[in-house]
């Protein structure tokens, strides 16, 4: 099925000609940029201001985070392939690729859990210093977004398995995909600004 047809049949036409679910979701993502912008801004303002360690340069593990960044980037690739499969009517393909996103997302969360645990054992907590507070708040909120995305995609995977998600309502996966890509681009910014520009 043509992707455009799948989108068009999911909702009635609107006076703007735009899918209202999609427009509403883009507005939500716009508000999310302000949310993460404020968290990133807070981190940058407090950067280097801690008077007790550990500081970012002493504790951040670049090789490990590079791998988790790669995992998240590949999950974004899996999203677009899953959507393409679903719009073409390939249920098996969509099931496989949605599952791949879930596994990759959980892999990313595993890396983050390891990193947080390691930092805790190194003496860095939310209360230790300005770096700890701003770092855990920023990356913790990002991790929470990834967790929501994993749960959302799991529900879609179950719907796809039961035949309730197909080309006729592929917009549901497209919107979940927009959320997932947004989480990915936020991580692109975090990886550069927090991990690499130390």
């Amino acid at each position, binding site marked *: 099925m*043509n*992707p*455009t*047809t799948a*989108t*068009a049949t999911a909702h009635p*036409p*609107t*006076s*703007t*000609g*735009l*899918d209202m679910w*999609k*427009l509403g979701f*883009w507005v939500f*993502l*716009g*508000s999310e*940029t*302000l949310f*993460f*912008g*404020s968290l990133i*801004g807070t981190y*940058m*303002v407090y950067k280097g*201001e*801690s*008077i*007790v360690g550990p500081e970012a340069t002493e504790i951040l593990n*670049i*090789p490990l985070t*590079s791998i988790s*960044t*790669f995992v998240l*980037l*590949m999950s*974004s*690739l899996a*999203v*677009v*392939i899953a959507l*393409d499969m679903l*719009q073409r009517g390939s249920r098996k393909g969509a099931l496989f690729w949605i599952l791949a996103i879930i596994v990759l997302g959980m892999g990313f969360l595993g890396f983050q859990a390891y990193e947080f645990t390691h930092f805790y054992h190194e003496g860095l907590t939310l209360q230790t*210093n*300005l770096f700890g507070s701003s770092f855990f708040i920023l990356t913790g909120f990002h991790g929470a977004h990834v967790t929501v995305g994993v749960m959302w995609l799991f529900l879609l995977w179950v719907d796809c398995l039961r035949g309730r998600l197909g080309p006729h309502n592929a917009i549901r996966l497209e919107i979940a*995909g*927009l959320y997932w*890509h*947004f989480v*990915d*681009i936020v991580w*692109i*910014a975090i*990886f*550069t*600004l927090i991990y*690499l*520009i130390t």
Partner: protein
Amino acid sequence: MSTETHGHAVTTHEGGHATIKTYVMIGVILTIVTAAEVAIFYIEALAPILVPALLVMSAGKFLLVVYFYMHLKYDSPVFSRVFFGPMLLAIVFVAASLVILFKYLPQIDSY
């Protein structure tokens, strides 16, 4: 694509996506750029240009994901406006915070 609404043809601008081949190519580019970011982080000789180089590469990755994976290249420009508008505001907010705090309030409290 076109749809009929209240007797008028309305162009939605929505639809057309890239092919899987394009998506995979973008995935490869994203991987290479990420590897390059990490590589230049470890090269001492590139330290003077590290920050601008990382910012440019990061912005490139960001735009690739937004335009191709999030389909803004193919979708209505309205979606771009409602996304990039607040994002611009967020960038201005961060920049203004940094300027105010470091230029006008150099003695911020630390602990």
